[in-house]
């Protein structure tokens, strides 16, 4: 679905933990999520730090939306990874 949206001219930042899968499928702008059940958060952290992680991921997604890409490209903020 993300691919269909890109093809129609709407840039899409796909946040997923499974970046390998997204790349394989050909999604152009792939943002590294944390883990499958919580791609935009880290439940092991206190809620304000969890939210800070979320903000970093969303900022990375916004960066992906402003970046020109040709092939499937991963956008990763290493500080959010567990």
């Amino acid at each position, binding site marked *: *679905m*993300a*691919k*269909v*949206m*890109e*093809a*129609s*001219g*709407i*840039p*899409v*930042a*796909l*946040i*997923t*933990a*499974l970046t390998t899968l*997204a790349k*394989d*499928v*050909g999604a*152009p*702008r792939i943002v590294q*999520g944390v883990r*499958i*059940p*919580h*791609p*935009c*958060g880290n*439940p092991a952290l206190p*809620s304000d730090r*969890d*939210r800070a992680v*979320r*903000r970093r*991921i*969303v900022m990375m*997604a*916004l960066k992906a*939306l*402003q*970046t*020109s*890409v*040709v*092939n*499937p490209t991963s956008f990763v903020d290493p500080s959010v990874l567990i």
Partner: protein
Amino acid sequence: MTSPIRIVHYVNQFFGGIGGEERADTELLIREHPVGPGVGIARALGERGRIVATLIGGDNYFTERMDVARSAALEAIERYRPDVVIAGPAFNAGRYGMACGEVCKAVTETLRIPSVTAMSPHNPAVSLYRRSTYILPTGESAASMPHILPRLTAFAHRLAIGDAIGPAEREGYMPRGIRGIILDERSAAQRAAEMLKAKLTGEPYQTEIPVEVFQPVSPAAPLQDLTTATIALVTTSGLVPRGNPDGFKSMNESRWATYPVKHLDALAPDEWEPIHGGYDARFARENPNRVVPLDVLRELENEGVIGRLHADLIVTVGVGTPVEVCQRMGEEIVDELHRANVSAAIFTSN
């Protein structure tokens, strides 16, 4: 002994004996007897049936005036009431292959008459028509005519009498993009052991599941100005309002929905529930923003980092959804986003 079958055969101007490239504009001609390769088909058929009509069409006539040609062919074929339609063989002739494919497709889909054609696996018509009819493989040139005619005839006869056609590799036609499920004589473990043994000893083997290659897309141009952009939040996480008002299934769902979030600063745990059946839902239940980051996007909107967060959250369930359904949903969502002047989307997936 079944009664003799009736065949209509389609050939182009060359195999129809009309002429070469200079006669490619020939409009549909009808002969009430076998012509060209049809003579070989009739011989192979013997008493079991006959070619009641041969349709001859010019390669250019068919490919340049396809709607007209198709209607003319259908009308003619319907008059002759065949049990099966044979087209070609077209070998590696591209326009001829297209015409054969188009005739067979039209006859099978519109008149519900079974059809079969034959051409080289490299004929460009194969990818367009293999799902719509049966295509038997031939060599590149008419040198393989003696090889294909008996096979084409036998296959056509089976179609005409309603014989069940088995898997592509056993029956010798090109796979039509349909996976059937059969009962093999051997268990999967047995077949795997035999396949491993073949691999280890350097013998030939063939995978049972072909591996897919996905088509890339041309990415959209990037956003120029974030501060004036409207960003939509889309998710396949199956996060829906508590109570699942639209009755989403936890997998194999082919619908999507929008839920207003304009009034929300964050997703509250008691107001949303995840119904996706493929991930451990605990973490999303405790804090839904971990799958749909509304809280942060609202914050960024308030700070002026982004222009606007789209008023609705777009939701579906990303488990077991075939590509064609994803395609259709994607197109519908795009219409929605274009209507609402959305500039970009953040898409979350589990």
